[in-house]
């Protein structure tokens, strides 16, 4: 009897209880491919034509990142220049989430004042409102900084548009090759030749302050490592030991260089060279080839490639004396050329994926590998200073080109840059 009553009670209470609960919906992933944004051409308060189209540069930056979908300029139904003039209802009709407006005005001393504001269409809120003085020759750079600010405000990650990249361009017939070490803006524009030689140039690496490049050059007839200051062009030979001098990589404090040396015994191992004193510390001592060192962000350990287990895999070794190397990559038969993300949580590597060399991302804690690219011969990964993207070379049609993949693999893009084969790109640190 009691049971029957209970059953009846249950039958009565269950639907009632459900009816009182609010609806709960789990959102498991963001399906939107990119953020729709309107970049309104800036008002120019001076005479004649505007000295620089800031909005065009910002629009190109955001579009190139793959994470934004700027409204084509032709579809801008109105062109406000201040936040208060942004009619969110209108922009909502155009399915735009954010509107960037601003104006450029001449300032004293041949300089300009750049004002810009970012408005959220959803909330009507003004998210950014900045006025910066800009040097006459730095308008493009200032435009990239606007892109950086917008990127960071909306995505929560500092933009890396105002950074630079270094790479080696190779052209000419096989018998008469020309090697150029080039530095350009992150978008591939504004190329600048740092060093040029008929002999191979390899492995450019940025100093942490972004003012110097270390690289390998054979121009003296044998491999040697040089550090060159970009502003002055001063080139300093830092290692020309017998045998291999290769794969330089600056420590986070910029005072040391990790490198691969074979020295007299011909056994390639990883060393650390203190630049000021030329003091050399041997980190590995293994009959196998240990090379391609990369510093962990905390400067306390170094990742490197070793074929001690038969095929190349990534290992890590601490800098303290007597530290033993520990294997880091276990997935796949080939993982090489590690580059560490700024937070130290992932390594960008070259991995052999179903017969093709591709860029992979390795979780340094869990060891899992995610293949990010789909080319046939993708090489030389370099992580952006914000960790959001990886720059690499991709062999397309028998020619090496530069490409970028987002660190989650969602966005891939090509970089239009110099002619010839483009090798071993290196993304600069943030340049403040």
């Amino acid at each position: 009897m009691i049971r029957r009553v209970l059953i009846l009670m249950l039958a009565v209470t269950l639907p009632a209880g459900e009816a009182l609960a609010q609806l709960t919906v789990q959102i498991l992933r963001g399906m939107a491919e990119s953020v729709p944004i309107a970049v309104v051409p800036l008002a120019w308060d001076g005479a004649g034509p505007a000295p620089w189209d800031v909005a065009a540069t910002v629009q190109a930056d955001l579009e190139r990142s793959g994470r934004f979908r700027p409204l084509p300029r032709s579809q801008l139904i109105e062109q406000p220049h201040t936040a208060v003039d942004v009619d969110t209802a209108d922009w909502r009709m155009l399915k735009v989430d954010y509107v960037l407006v601003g104006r450029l005005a001449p300032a004293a001393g041949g300089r300009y004042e750049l004002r810009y504001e970012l408005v959220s269409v959803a909330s009507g809120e003004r998210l950014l409102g900045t006025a910066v003085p800009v040097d006459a020759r730095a308008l493009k750079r200032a435009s990239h900084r606007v892109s950086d600010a917008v990127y960071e405000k909306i995505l929560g990650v500092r933009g890396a548009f105002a950074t630079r990249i270094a790479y080696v361009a190779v052209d000419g017939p096989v018998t008469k090759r020309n090697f150029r070490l080039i530095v350009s803006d992150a978008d591939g524009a504004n190329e600048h030749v740092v060093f040029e030689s008929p002999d191979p140039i390899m492995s450019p690496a940025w100093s942490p302050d972004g003012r110097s490049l270390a690289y390998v050059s054979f121009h003296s007839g044998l491999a040697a490592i040089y550090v060159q200051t970009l502003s002055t062009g001063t080139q300093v030979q830092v290692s020309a030991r017998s045998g291999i001098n290769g794969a330089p990589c600056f420590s986070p404090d910029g005072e040391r260089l990790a490198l691969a040396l074979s020295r007299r015994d011909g056994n390639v191992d990883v060393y650390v060279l203190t630049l000021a004193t030329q003091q050399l510390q041997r980190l590995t001592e293994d009959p196998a080839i240990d090379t391609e060192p990369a510093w962990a962000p905390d400067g306390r350990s170094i990742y490197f490639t070793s074929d001690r287990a038969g095929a190349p895999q990534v290992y890590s070794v601490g800098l303290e004396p007597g530290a033993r190397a520990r294997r880091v990559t276990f997935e796949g038969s080939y993982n090489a050329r590690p580059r560490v993300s700024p937070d130290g949580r992932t390594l960008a590597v070259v991995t052999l994926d179903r017969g093709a060399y591709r860029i992979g991302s390795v979780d340094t804690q869990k060891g899992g590998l995610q293949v990010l690219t789909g080319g046939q011969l993708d090489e030389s990964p370099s992580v952006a200073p914000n960790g959001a993207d990886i720059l690499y070379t991709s062999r397309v049609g028998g020619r090496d080109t530069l490409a970028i993949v987002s660190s989650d693999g969602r966005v891939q893009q090509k970089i239009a840059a110099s002619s010839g084969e483009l090798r071993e790109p290196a993304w600069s640190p943030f340049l403040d």
Partner: protein
Amino acid sequence: MNGNRNATLAPVGWSIALHAALAGLLVFGLNLRSREPEAVILPIDAVVVDDALLQAAGQRRREDERAAAERQQRAAQELERRREQEQQERQAEEARRAEADARAAAERRQQAEVAAKEKAAADAKRKAEQAAEAKAAAEKKRLAQDARERDAREAELRTRLAEEEARAGAGFQSLKASYVRAIQAHVEQRWYEPPGVAQGLSCTIVVRQIPGGEVVGMKFGTCNGNAAVRQSIETAVRNASPLPPPPEPSLFEREVELVFTPKEARSR
């Protein structure tokens, strides 16, 4: 046991003693009679007797005879008495024995009766027990049967309830699930997930809608995302307005809780 035997032997002892005494008296009596002729012979020798003497002697003789007769009488009486006593004792003994026999018999009878009664009682009890057992078993069986029937009825009721609930409910539940899925897809399509936030993000936002689906308010609950994540969610929710209508009007909820918990970074 010994006491009992002594008790039974005591009367026998007395009987022997009495018989011995009786035999003694008889012998003594014979002796008395054998001495009488000697006294009779004497007067013949004494011819010269005085009258008085004769009278006295006659008196003495008569007295002696009387005494003897009395003695004889007494002995006979004693004998008779003893015989009688013996007889009485024998009778008493017989009576006692008979009584004992009777008592024993009675006892045996009684015992038999008791035994019989006990047996009857035991039989009755056993029968009663068996009957009770049988009854209990029957009752149990009946109860079990009842319980089975009740369970069956309840199960049927439950099934019917469940079916009914499923019919109303399944429709209800599946409609509700499809409503939830519709909102989920609607919001997910409008959410741009900022890079690198997927790991461990958990962000709850309660959205208020009015009939027609227009979002008229939203409020963040617990959220471990940064400003950009909140921005992305707020934008997604505003862009999701109006929310899709429920497949059945009664499913409409003014408050919808959206829980943003991306599983992991999306792979290609």
